[in-house]
């Protein structure tokens, strides 16, 4: 048997027509609803069973539909509006606030230490009663003072925080619906955690560095990352999607807890460089159990690293309640490692901002790490694949609904006449534009090129990758229509 004859046969087998474009289509077709043209029965069957094995609820939603070819050609246009909006949000960080935070920094440090001392004796093991919760804005929208954490924001700054939270929530709910529509494979909603993320995110300087989990969409927003860039990994077109160095916002980390150590090492480097940047690591209540997180606490303490550990205790790690992770309130863990810990009302954006500012200033001024436990609630499912009705009560969610972070700030703004109808209307308008921007971006998001599999595996190249790339290109080319120019074969030999 000759090689040519076998190649011809396999070509026919794959696409039915032997055409390269048909081959492409057959690979993507099973993901499109009903679009099985050119697909062999076997291929169709394969993808059907694949879709069925998605974890839990995704069972019948299957994979996201691939973007139609026509939309793929039109490049992702970024509407000027949102880009401008996010820039404006950044500019809204006035010099005054930074100065204010700095001037109170030293006082804050000692106070923080005191907080730790007093709370250490707290007997509570249930995670709430008897522990001090830093709060500056009550769920009813009442502005209250806290002896250790003061904040003085301009009306404009207050409105800015509101706007940040509304737009973040809008982006998030848009992403959730896109997942329902099959545009995303998965989405991890931050619903309910807007205050924790915006409050902490707005406490940072541009030169500070952020290590997020996979749910920090609000922090990304504060860093100026185009929200639509967050969608790529959830759509399955990339494993990151943004340049971590351009906004000092690291890639999302899915493996629980790892990034706490990366943040610590980065912070050690900041100290070695004699710089005064701060580093912040986000993680969840579940993550607090990981060895990596405990090791990060140890390292940061030993090296007095300028890192803030920001734990969003949203009460759940998928189906496991926070009590499954700890017998003491999480913030109290810090004491054993030799640095302060504080619990803040995670649904109070003012408190989150004030406490994170204090922690960041502490880090900057050489006083080492601090743990912030933002006490909040995961209002939605763990991800779109999850079904929380299997493990938690509806009433619990209702209780937290009454503590909504956005509603309480709105009440405060309205009651104290800090924002007028025109402001709320303009935020609403922006929110609509955000929704539109996200929908358009997802529909025009290009699929990766097949040969991208072999890209960036190594910085200095690797002979085996080159060999496999060439072989695979040749293999793909064997399906090509002989009348058309070969696809990737031409680039197959290129070193990388």
């Amino acid at each position, binding site marked *: 048997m000759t090689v040519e004859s076998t190649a011809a046969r396999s070509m026919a*087998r794959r696409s039915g027509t032997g055409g390269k474009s048909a081959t492409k289509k057959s690979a993507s077709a099973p*993901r499109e609803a009903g679009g099985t043209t050119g697909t062999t029965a076997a291929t169709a069957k394969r993808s059907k*069973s694949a879709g069925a*094995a998605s974890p839990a609820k995704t069972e019948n939603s299957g994979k996201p539909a691939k973007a139609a070819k026509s939309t793929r050609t039109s490049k992702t246009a970024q509407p000027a509006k949102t880009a401008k909006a996010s820039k404006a949000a950044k500019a809204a960080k006035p010099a005054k606030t930074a100065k204010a935070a700095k001037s109170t920094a030293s006082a804050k440090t000692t106070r923080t230490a005191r907080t730790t001392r007093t709370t250490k004796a707290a007997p509570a093991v249930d995670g709430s009663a008897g522990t001090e919760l830093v709060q500056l804005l009550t769920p009813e929208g009442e502005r209250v003072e806290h002896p250790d954490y003061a904040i003085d924001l301009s009306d404009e700054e207050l409105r800015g925080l509101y706007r940040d939270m509304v737009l973040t929530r809008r982006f998030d709910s848009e992403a959730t619906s896109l997942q329902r529509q099959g545009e995303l494979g998965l989405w991890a909603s931050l619903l309910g955690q807007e205050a924790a993320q915006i409050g902490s995110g707005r406490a940072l300087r541009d030169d500070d560095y952020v290590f997020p989990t996979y749910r920090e969409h609000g922090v990304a927003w504060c860093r100026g990352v185009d929200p639509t860039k967050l969608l790529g990994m*959830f759509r399955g*077109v990339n494993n990151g999607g943004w340049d971590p160095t351009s906004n000092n916002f690291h890639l999302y980390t899915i493996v629980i807890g790892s990034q706490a150590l990366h943040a610590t090492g980065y912070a050690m480097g900041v100290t070695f460089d004699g710089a005064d940047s701060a580093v912040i690591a986000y993680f969840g209540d579940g993550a607090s159990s990981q060895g990596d997180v405990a090791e990060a606490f140890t390292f940061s303490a030993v090296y007095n690293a300028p890192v803030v550990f920001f734990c969003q205790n949203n009460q759940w790690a998928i189906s496991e309640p926070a009590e499954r*992770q700890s017998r003491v309130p999480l913030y109290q863990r810090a004491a054993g490692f030799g640095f302060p810990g504080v619990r803040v009302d995670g649904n109070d954006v003012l408190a989150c901002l004030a406490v994170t500012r204090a922690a960041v200033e502490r880090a900057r001024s050489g006083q080492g790490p601090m743990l912030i436990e933002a006490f909040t609630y995961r209002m939605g499912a763990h991800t779109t694949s999850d079904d929380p009705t299997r493990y938690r009560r509806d009433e619990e969610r209702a209780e937290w609904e009454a503590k909504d972070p956005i509603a309480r700030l709105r009440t405060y703004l309205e009651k104290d006449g800090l924002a007028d109808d025109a402001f709320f209307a303009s935020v609403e308008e922006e929110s609509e534009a955000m929704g539109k921007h996200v929908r358009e971006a997802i529909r025009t998001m290009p699929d*990766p090129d097949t040969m991208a*599999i072999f890209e960036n595996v190594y910085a200095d190249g690797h002979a085996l990758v080159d060999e496999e790339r060439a072989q695979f290109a040749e293999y793909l080319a064997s399906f090509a229509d002989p009348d058309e120019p070969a696809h990737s074969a031409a680039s197959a030999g290129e070193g990388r």
Partner: protein
Amino acid sequence: MAAATSTASASAASGTPDVRKMPIAKALNEALRSSMENDPKVLVMGEDVGKLGGVFRITDGLQKDFGEQRVIDTPLAESGIVGSAIGLALRGYRPVVEIQFDGFVFPAYDQIVTQLAKMHARALGKIKLPVVIRIPYAGGIGAVEHHSESPEALFAHVAGLKCVSPSNASDAYWMMRQAVESDDPVIFFEPKRRYWDKGEVDVTAIPAPLHAARVVRQGGDCTLAAYGPMVKTCLEAASAAEEEGRSLEVVDLRSMSPIDFDTLQKSVERTGRLVVVHEAPVFLGTGSEVAARITERCFYHLEAPVLRVGGFHAPYPPARLEDEYLPGLDRVLDAVDRALAY
């Protein structure tokens, strides 16, 4: 090592067969249930295995029926899960550990490789480590990063561990039962994209030995060897090849450590050609070992070099590329074409 020829072969021997059709996921669930009923020392532990029943629902309903002491929701720490499972085993329990996804086993890798695998030898055989580590593995479900990996070679490489992967519901049931009964640590790789594939399970059958390979389709032109999710792919390839007048034999290895080379050798001696298929990267993968051993055993029977089809030396790609990354029927048949062209 004895090879089984068919799933139902032995059922008659044990009287009235009780055959039920169920998906792989359910078969695993049933196997865990039977194991727990038969031996009060069997425990199930892991993240979200209790009320939720695991993210794939493999442990569905077990906590309700066996209680929180036997079906244990653990803190979120894989090293802790495996490390404490070792301790429980030392105390006489038989823990069945769930790792939520393939990519999350690595925090536990140290415990598995340096402790679990070696403790029996260090204790000069005085202690046993009957721990099963279940890992839903491999790709094909359109998931995000770290949810689609095939790390079996990283475990099969370690002496002291046994590694298996069922491809169908009957094997899922029986291999899980046998893994739990094994006095050695078993890493149990579950082909997650096949969880909902249905098959007949005879719970009264006498099963094939845990580490025996099985000829699942007979043919004369070339042997395909696979395990877990790729067995179905190879069977589909064999059907497609049949339409072209080619007869392919498919061997389900079922176990990656130990490997039943005797069964495979007999097959290759008949066909003269072998293509090994797995999702895991080919470089230093299971297929490399199979190729080397079969070449040693069958040198004068081979008409072509043993070929491998599998993943590339690159990270598992984003979901939209996985159809092209994963070995499908075309890539398998392409290798068959090449083998037959020698």
